[in-house]
């Protein structure tokens, strides 16, 4: 048995972009669900474009467009504090004024926007369909990475706009303000940089725009981690800093880099800039596929093998230690992996077996300090919920499994 296997519910970005929606910690019976299920951690989202849409106004400007959302986020964190639920605050996205894409933002859903940096934003098959439709967005509007995920050209160093936003967040919510203000136990720097951020890679040589070039995005993530550490040091370094929050997607190409390739390059990049993460730096990862596939040979342990002897950040028990800050079991995958099983039953079984595999000090559980569940109410378009989509309040079988698991702080 693992001494400590914490559980977190990630409420999704909606609580930070549309307070009052189902991702809001205060919404409906969300607080009750945390209490009923003995869930001791919550992941809330601070969406930079929402909080600071105008660079001329600080994120905490009471007259700024983000003021109401900031108040709501404060109130959610305060509610979690009151409930004894620890908060990881996920910093999310870049405003277009920070990554230089404001002009394109005014042309969304036009060919100019869709075609911009298309090899780094669109999968080849989707691009081909768009071209075949005469590059007419009214006929085919291809899946693509949003403009808000473009890595700012100025970088993410100590003088960057991102450093300013991180310092705003750290100063406002670090643990040192406990007792006088809402506070968090951890701040997560970036979400799924190997899936969402673009570009991931340098242009490839040759004539194929979709060919894989050299991986480059790891340098940005390393810079984020270094910048965050330097800011945190000025405030007492009293709050956990989570990164890199990799997606465990099994896709590939220029838009998605597998976690193992990215991890190795990130460790190299940290070494190259001379940044040695300290005791408050937590390696975070996402975990859908190990749970969904009911894997015994897990991606999480392959990741730990890559980190062994190289990762210098937070550890407990057998190093290296990995926190899963997002994960769950998607119903869409149940239908495809286990067609003979009823989907909700398959979701519950996947969770029960996943817990049993990880709740131990060896095998798949070695070094795993947290497992994550994405959302309480199901997101109809990314359904791994413990309950049916609101306004239903039907607890699914997975809810009963989640509620049956032991409580760890």
């Amino acid at each position, binding site marked *: 048995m693992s001494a400590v296997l914490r559980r977190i519910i990630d409420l999704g970005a909606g609580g930070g972009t549309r*307070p*009052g929606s189902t991702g809001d910690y205060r919404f409906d019976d969300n607080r009750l669900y945390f209490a009923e299920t003995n869930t001791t951690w919550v992941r809330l989202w601070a969406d930079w474009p929402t909080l600071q*849409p105008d660079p001329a106004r600080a994120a905490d400007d009471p007259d700024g467009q983000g003021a109401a959302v900031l108040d*709501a986020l404060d109130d959610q964190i305060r509610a979690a504090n009151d409930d004894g639920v620890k908060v990881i605050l996920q910093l999310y996205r870049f405003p277009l004024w920070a990554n230089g894409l404001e002009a394109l933002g005014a042309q969304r859903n036009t060919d100019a926007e869709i075609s911009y940096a298309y090899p780094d934003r669109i999968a080849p098959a989707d691009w081909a369909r768009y071209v075949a439709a005469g590059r007419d967005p009214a006929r085919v509007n291809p899946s693509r990475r949003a403009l808000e995920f473009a890595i700012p050209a100025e970088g993410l160093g100590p003088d960057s706009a991102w450093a300013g936003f991180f310092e705003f967040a750290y100063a406002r919510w670090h643990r040192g303000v406990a007792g006088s203000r809402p506070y968090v136990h951890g701040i997560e720097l970036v979400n799924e940089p190997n899936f969402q951020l673009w570009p991931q890679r340098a242009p490839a040589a040759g004539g194929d725009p979709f060919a894989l070039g050299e991986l480059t995005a790891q340098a940005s993530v390393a810079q984020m981690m270094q910048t965050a550490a330097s800011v945190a040091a000025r405030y007492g370094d009293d709050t956990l800093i989570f990164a890199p929050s990799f997606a465990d997607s099994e896709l590939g190409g220029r838009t998605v880099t597998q976690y193992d390739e990215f991890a190795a390059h990130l460790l190299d990049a940290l070494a190259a800039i001379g940044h040695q993460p300290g005791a408050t730096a937590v390696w975070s990862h996402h975990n859908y596929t190990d749970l969904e596939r009911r894997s015994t040979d897990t991606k999480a342990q392959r990741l730990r093998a890559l980190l062994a002897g190289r990762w210098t950040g937070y550890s407990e028990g057998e190093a290296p230690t990995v926190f899963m800050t997002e994960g769950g079991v998607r119903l869409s995958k149940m239908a495809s992996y286990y067609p003979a099983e009823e989907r909700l039953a398959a979701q519950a*079984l996947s969770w029960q*077996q996943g817990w049993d595999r990880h709740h131990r000090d060896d095998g798949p559980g070695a070094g795993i300090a947290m497992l994550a569940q994405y959302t309480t109410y*199901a997101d109809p378009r990314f359904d791994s919920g413990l309950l049916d989509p609101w306004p*239903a309040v039907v607890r*699914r079988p997975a809810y009963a499994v989640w509620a049956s698991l032991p409580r760890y702080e």
Partner: protein
Amino acid sequence: MSGIDRRRFLLAVVGTAGAGLAGSMDAWAAPTSTQAQARAATYRALVRSLGGGPDGRFRHVDSTAAHRRYRRWYGAQPAAVRAHADAVLDELGSPGRPGYAELAGRPKGTRGGRRGAVVAAALALVCVGCEPPPAEDERPELPTLAPA
């Protein structure tokens, strides 16, 4: 599995599912043509509201085509998701359909603010027909809309 065999577990959770889902399944029934028409009208009205936004983000979207895409998506969803979609569109039926300003609003989200949650859910449904489909493994986000 520990302490319980797989077959018994599956039987147990299927039983739980059946019992627990009774409420939501009962809540969803195949719509009458009148209900379907009303929901379609609401959906198209919401699309037109978005199309009037100041940044032109949705200016290219034809409300009928958007509703067609939505209907395809809706038809592929399980009952619980269809019940969700129906409930949201019913709650925003005429009168009381939100205009662009409300769709783009950034409500403070005080406790019990059901309307804000319904509008956010409606925006997500409208994006099914108006926004690019999510890539595999991608979570679609609600768009941050330009203020009215």
